[in-house]
């Protein structure tokens, strides 16, 4: 029949090949002299990922989590920290904490971060005396037992807590109140680590973000202002008196440790003005206000110092929609090399 050829053509046109995701496990004995990078991905795309950078041969393997566990990491990975040979990855929108063995990258536990069916939206994790502390956007800090890998307590803090640090046996939590825009919070909560009670709320300035303790036990807090008339600044809190001591006059949007000093980055989204400076917190002086040139970045998205090889690793999120880069600088602030990684790199763990 003369329609036969037509039918064959139609079947060809509509035949569909099913593609399965291909995975290639990496040889975990090669997980040395390199770094594991958490790439946040994008909201509602379930595309958080891990990239492995080999410092020896400068090669990069993307989607390491998927390759090692056969499943995806989830939606919006916000933080990755190592503690006791385990890697803790905080996944904000999926509302989970993935715990991996650092050496083999096998999954040890997926901690579910939901309560009564509602996501707690975890943001950042820090460790202190054998316990993990996780800021959750529902107004709590969750306490994780690092042996049983389960939540053992919830500490009530302020609205939408962002970051936390420890000083003088106390925990300092920045309450951003970011989901109440424009009525954001202005406080940090001081928490007693024995009875998990809030001792005090210290008013530091609008929209508190990153917090960091220096070697003297002082607490430094970024107050991000309103992205407009109120500038993004750094303030200093005395952890003995729990009073705010100083508001620094320079712009600052993130705090990062380099040995005893701080690398302070700044990015003004309206003017596109940005800077990376080096700050000495013991003397409270700026060592260099142009430590690393921001001309190397489209969107600076985080910066880390590797004590072992004395190099600085900074993230470029490009325009947030394209694959990002990890850029390497020496301690003089000179660019050395760049590694292509996944979408929106934001955290890094170094392997010896």
């Amino acid at each position, binding site marked *: 029949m003369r329609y036969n050829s037509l039918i064959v053509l*139609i079947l060809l*046109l*509509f035949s*569909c090949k099913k*593609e*399965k*995701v291909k*995975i290639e496990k990496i040889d975990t004995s090669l997980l040395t002299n390199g770094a594991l990078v958490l790439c*946040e991905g*994008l*909201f*509602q*795309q*379930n*595309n958080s*990922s891990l990239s492995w950078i080999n410092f020896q041969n400068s090669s990069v393997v*993307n*989607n390491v989590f*998927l390759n090692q*566990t*056969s*499943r*995806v990491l*989830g*939606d*919006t990975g916000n933080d990755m920290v190592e503690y006791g040979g385990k890697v803790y990855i905080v*996944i904000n*929108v*999926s*509302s*989970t904490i993935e715990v991996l063995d650092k050496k083999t990258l096998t999954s040890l536990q*997926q901690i*579910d971060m*939901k309560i009564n*069916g*509602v*996501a707690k*939206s975890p943001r950042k994790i820090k460790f202190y005396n054998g316990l993990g502390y996780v800021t959750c*956007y*529902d*107004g709590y800090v969750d306490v994780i037992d690092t042996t049983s890998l389960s939540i053992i307590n919830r500490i009530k803090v302020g*609205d*939408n807590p962002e970051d936390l640090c420890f000083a003088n046996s106390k925990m300092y939590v920045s309450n951003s*109140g*970011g*989901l*109440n*825009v*424009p009525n954001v919070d202005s406080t940090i909560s001081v928490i007693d680590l024995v009875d998990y009670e809030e001792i005090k709320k210290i008013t530091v300035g609008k929209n508190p973000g990153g917090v960091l303790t220096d070697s003297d036990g002082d607490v430094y807090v970024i107050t991000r202002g309103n*992205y407009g008339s109120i500038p993004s600044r750094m303030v200093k809190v005395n952890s003995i008196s729990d009073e705010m001591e100083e508001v620094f006059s320079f712009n600052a949007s993130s705090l990062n440790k380099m040995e005893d000093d701080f690398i302070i980055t700044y990015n003004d*989204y309206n003017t596109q003005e940005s800077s990376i400076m080096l700050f000495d917190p013991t003397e409270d002086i700026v060592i260099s206000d142009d430590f690393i040139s921001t001309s190397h970045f489209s969107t600076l998205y985080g910066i880390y110092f590797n004590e072992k090889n004395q190099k600085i690793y900074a993230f470029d999120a*490009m*325009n*947030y*929609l*394209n*694959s990002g880069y990890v850029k390497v600088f020496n301690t003089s602030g000179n660019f050395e090399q760049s590694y292509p990684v*996944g*979408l*929106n790199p934001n955290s890094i763990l170094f392997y010896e």
Partner: protein
Amino acid sequence: MFCELGFSQDSIKRLPEVSISPIFKEQNQTNSQSQTISSKQIELLQPEDLGTLLQKTSGTSIKSYGGLGGLKTISIRGLNSQHSTFVQDGFLLQNAQTGQVNLGQMIVDNISEVSLNRIGRQSFLLPVSAYLKGNLITVYNKNNQFENKEFSSSNFKLGIGSFGQYETYLSSKHEKKYFLISSYVKFRRADGDYNFKINNGTLDYKGERLNNDLKDKYGGVTLAYRLKNNAILRTISHFKEVEQGLPGAVIIYNPIANQRLNTNQYTTQIDFTHFHKKLYYRFYSTYSKDKLNYVDPTFLNNSGGINTTYTNDFFNIGVSFQRRFKTITTYGGIETKYNTLSFSNLNSNSPKRSSNFMLLGTNYKIGNFKFDVQVSGQGILESNNKGEKAKDVYRVNPYFSIERVSLKPWKLSINAWFRNSFRMPSFNELYYNNIGNVDLKPESVNQFSLGISMLPFANKLGIEMVVNTFYSEVDNQILALPTKNLFVWSMQNIGKVKNYGAESRVSFSKQIKKDWKFNLSMNYTLQFALDFSNSSSPTYKNQIAYMPKHTGNFDFGISYKSLGFTSSIIRVSKRYSLNENIVSNEVPEFVNIDLGLYLNHKMLKDNNLRVQFMVKNLINESYSYVRYFVMPGRNYLITLSYALQ
């Protein structure tokens, strides 16, 4: 059957005596610049909404977020949904807040015909604002027109489907020589939750798409009065009330969704059409109020969630005319349009837009050649009571077309056209809380098209073929980008996009033997929509997100007496969720197959009972248009319709 574009001379001559319906509908014919779907096809396909129906046209790609009543938009020849204008029964449909029409909330029960027309020339009496954008889609309901017979008719339809879906539709029309009244009402409900299975790496991720319930009501009344001097006065009123859950994207490891959206819309339209010798003109006006209430009870703020209402008011008034002088037709009109948006939270903006349009065109026929030239002028004035406002816009836009018709053999017709158009940024893009950017410029488009249509082998096999090629350039494309951080996005005018491709259609219908009928139609579109924004970007010359390179559909039907079978297959090639065309951004291709079986039974005099059974997504694939907005698997729908006269 296969004659010139748009308004044939015959129908113009017949107009005053017979019907005004050709003003709002196109001739039922193939030509390379328009595509029409008739009520018969609508009945066979039983689409849930206009979006599903428009998927049957070439050159289009639909983006659906899934679920009954969920957001569905159309992109035509690579131009995004905001470059399309929708006209229903001769009146503009509009939402200035989003700049687009949600096709998932346009029911098809009261539609007699849908046309996709790229050059806005199927009628000269449409609202002036309908001719100004890149693409035009017209929807027409014969119950809202005089059909020039004294009669009464009613239709009743009952449907029961998977996922707890029930629907009823009732319409009636009474027509006298000088008077017409018609009305319709539709109720629909669905639990909506459905199971899905997607890949989680190499593992399966099974889940249920929750919070997908829907309850909606639609209704309308039309009154029309024919005055003796060949004039018709008409009012059409519609309402729509939708309560729906928003299932959101499937978030792996977090299945919870609690957001809800309630929509209330009321529209009143009025027109007066007069056929005065060789001058026809039409005054028209629309008022519409559209309320959207968005509720998110689990948003982690200290007021216990989000509950915001957006109120859109839209009013327009205008006049269109056409005047014939032998082989020249002149047409045009003026229109003024107001849009306002208010947000229920006090800190927000309160934008107002007043738009003024002018159109003048002429259509000239010499031998087998037809020429059409149009010039439109627009002045768009913005204001904002509570903050900065966008810049006013004044533009003049041209359009030209040339066509050579009815070449022998095979009635070959060739045409070429050029259109320059733009779209205003929507209110959301300009003013929405932190996201909006009042500095946005309009998105501009230059479109070129070259098309051929023909009827090969004369009429022997009933084959119609159309091939079009197209090219367009979009400047100042508006894109949402995260700026302050990943949770604070902002609209930017940074894109430049070039679209090019080809679309083809073949249709074929034949009576095989006595009582046996057979029909087949195929569409295939190849389109490249490439990012030309920045030559140093990794996305340079990559395919724009969510634009498939290949789309095709294949429809086949066979009937014996009153029993019939239909099948419909759609295939959409892989797309990318972001402009960077890398494996991790791939959204897999899919094929969707729907099958239907129906029986028509004539009863009493002219009454007809119809029972139809449909299987949708036969192969039960959990596919998605938008990444992680997973569509339902295999589902069933049975409908019973009764038409009485």
